[in-house]
């Protein structure tokens, strides 16, 4: 399968989802894809095929909570919100990410 340039790097999806949820009260999957796409100025595109499994895994791990609710245009949707456990996980993930990108940047500059 050819990799799309703006496919999300494996492992960063969780970070993005947690970040998105920590800045919003609650959100459904569709809104999340739009949000990430918009905020990243269309640089990042979330694969639906990865998003939903990831969301359900996070739910199982207790990092997010899910509930059914009605959207503004009257559809039933599954809304996700972050838990306190999710927040601390997000902090850890973010730190990891910083370290990773910093490391990568240094290597790139050096070599």
């Amino acid at each position, binding site marked *: 399968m050819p990799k799309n340039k703006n496919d999300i790097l494996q492992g960063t999806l969780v970070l993005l989802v947690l970040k998105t949820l920590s800045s919003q009260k609650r959100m*459904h*999957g*569709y809104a999340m894809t739009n949000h990430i796409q918009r905020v990243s100025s269309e640089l990042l595109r979330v*694969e*639906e*095929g990865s998003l*939903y*499994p*990831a969301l*359900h*895994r996070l739910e*199982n*791990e*207790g990092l997010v909570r899910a509930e059914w609710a009605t959207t503004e*245009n009257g*559809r*039933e*949707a*599954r809304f996700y919100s972050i838990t306190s456990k999710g927040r601390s996980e997000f902090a850890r993930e973010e730190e990891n990410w910083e370290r990773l990108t910093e490391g990568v940047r240094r290597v790139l500059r050096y070599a």
Partner: protein
Amino acid sequence: MRWFRRLFNVFRRENVSAEIDRELSFHIAERVDEYVAAGMTPDGARRRALLEFGGFGAHKEHTREMVLNVSIEAFLQDLRFAVRMLLKNPGFAAAVVATLALGIGPSTAIFSVVDFLLVRPLPVQAPSKLVVPYVQQHGNSLQPAFSVPDYRDLQRDNSDVFSGLLASRELIDGLGFSGKAEKVMDLYVTGNFFSVLGLKPALGRFFASTEGERALADPVMVLSYAYWKSRFGGDPNIVGKAVAIDGRAITVIGIAPEGFYGVSPWANIQGYIPLGMAPISGADPDDFLENRRYRAISLLGRLRPGVSVQQAEAALDVEAKRLSRDHAAEDADLRLPLFPEPATRFDDPRNGTLTVVSTLFLGLSAVVLLLSCFNTGNLLAVRATFRQSELALRAALGAARGRLRQQLLVEWSVLSIGGGIAGTALGLFLSSLAGAMKLETDVPIRLDFHFDWRVLLFAVISTLTAGVIGGIAPALHGSRRNLNSSLNEGGRATTAKHRRVRSAMLMAQVGGAMTLLIAAGLFAHSLRRAEHTDLGFDPDHVLNFTMDPLLTGYNRSQGTEFFKTLLERLREEPGVISASTAYAAPMSYVVVGDTLSIKGFETPKGQPRPRAMYNTVSPDYFATLHIRLTHGRGFTEADDDRGDPVAIVSEAFAERYWPKLDPIGRTFTMLSNPGHDPRVVGVAADVRYRGIAGPIAPYFYVPFAQRPGTDSWATVQIRTAPSADSMVPEIERALASIDPDQPVWDLKTMHQGLYTMWGLLIFRLAAGLGAFLGAMALMLTLVGLYGVVSYDTSRRTREIGIRIALGARPSEIVRMVVRYALVILAVGLAVGFAGSLATSRFIGQFLILSPLDPLVYVLVSTSLTLVVLLACLVPAGKAARLDPISALRIRRER
């Protein structure tokens, strides 16, 4: 926690599925709205949204896997599915299970025998600590036979290495209780016997430690649990009552625990009596408790915790040196080697013949197991290719690849477990057949091949091995395929690699079958040879039976008289040509030998002192068995206990000890019977008493009336005019009229008597077992080859159709198929030849012909060739008769 939650979700999986459906549908609906808002038509928007979303089913599955504990759910699902698939294909399932069972069954059965012979510990406390000391004198063979004084010294001086040392002596007695005496196998034991073994009585009491120390002082006995049940119906009141052992009253004081059969696995001991009582059975002289020369008891020691066999052996070395010094007359040049109990069960603990035999047959059965694995491997691979399109379809519908593989694995596991269970059942059946084997003796020999946990563990390991070997290749085969090509070609794709794997398995199969068949052929040919070997006597028209008048209380001279009268009476019977007695009939389990000093023969330095087996016979023995006397005279009625001691030696004896000298008139001394130096009066032709092959050992005869010891055990041999078995009823009638109270056993023809472990039985067993394993191998090969070749030709229907359409003649088609089979055959035969060469060194020692016997090799390769051709001719003929039109029209033949 997370795992638990997923597990919990398994129980609400219907909800989960619906929920995921709703969630994903919402996503698509929103996306459609977005595109419509951007100006697309609803239909176009919907198509685009779905396209972008990708495989809905796959995403759903994926998400489900996150929510549910899929491994369990999937496993249950796969299990149901596997059982359903197999039930839909009962022929296939039965073929696989049967093939596996044919592999697992025989090897498990053979292992159950090996377990009994070499592994299973005695049913006593901490059996791994038990060791058996041996006696080796003058560098002669090892004997597990001690004198009582030597035993007492050993016990006194070595309590630092042994926490207990017991002695025992096996004897056959007559046990009388209201009526005719019944022959029983008794163990005469030291007072510490049961305490050293750590056993508690099922009833009554065991012996006190002092019981058995003095001759004939303790007329008590303990019955085995099984004998108590069978003879006395488990009557608890028997304790305290008296029974007659060899005509003397002995009180039963206790019952041994259930399942305890004595201290050697093959002897089923029925009663235990204090050692000091042994002279009542007549086998031992009254002074045997004090006579250092008289070696009749075997020892069993329990090592102290932390003491190794080596340390104990070092202690015995010191003891042996002291005994040699202090008792030079009896114990000169003594060694006392020590072995763990299991090594001492059946033969000389040093050479381990039994271990070699066991390894050999386990190895051969492992080959059968391997063949059955290859066969199932092929069956599965064939099925996997048939199912290719089904699997491809399911992969396209969203099944994860790992999931498909897991499913095949579950299906295979169901099959192998089925095969394992069927194999174990087959093994149980086969081992019960082996347990019912006739050993041609009425002596209660135990053949207890029951399935204990070791045997079951072996069956499980065999099943796992079969599962891994048989399952790996086809499992990979089934899942790692290009989906596209599988769908497009209608499941006809067969890569060259898979064909190569199959061919290699077939070649290995033919090779393995050849190795097995060669072994079987060699054993069978050996048996034929053995049956036609010149034994030095004529076994035709000879009837044997054994009696021991001491069992009913006769003394030595009464015993001599008894047989004299018996023989006279028998000679009067019509059809009896001659009758005689012998202590040991050829090939019987009874054997007696002695160390000798021979006048005129100096033992070369460093060589063992002369030792020979001998026989005590009545005057007519040589005439009855047609044993030729080459020099001098035979025995006469005058050679009795009043006459001078005389002996007849075998040709090998004369040759070895008095080469180029006239043996007549020379004398020798028997170590256990000094002061009665027999003078040689004749030389007899060599007779094979033990073993069919190899050089015949020196042997000698003394008259029954001059026998050493007090025993009157004898085998009566009768030469009959009509066939020997037709005389059985008449002889039985005659015996009943002479003395109806005398137990008689082993009444059978000399021919039957040859089939003992020392005679032909070992060859018959090897030939039978070899033939069985060989037949299995042949059948597996035939089925495997037939299956693969017909599968192969059916896969190539289109190709063959095209060939025929293009003008290929049927004979060419047949040749094409046969060529493939011949390549397999040629390589297989080469593999088999190499395998046979590798095993020939092993097998060679059990044969009486060369392990490279050309006749066997020719016969086996010819019959294998025929089988291979047979296996491929049917499918080849079918291919040749193919109608090209319909062959080309069929897209998929299923």
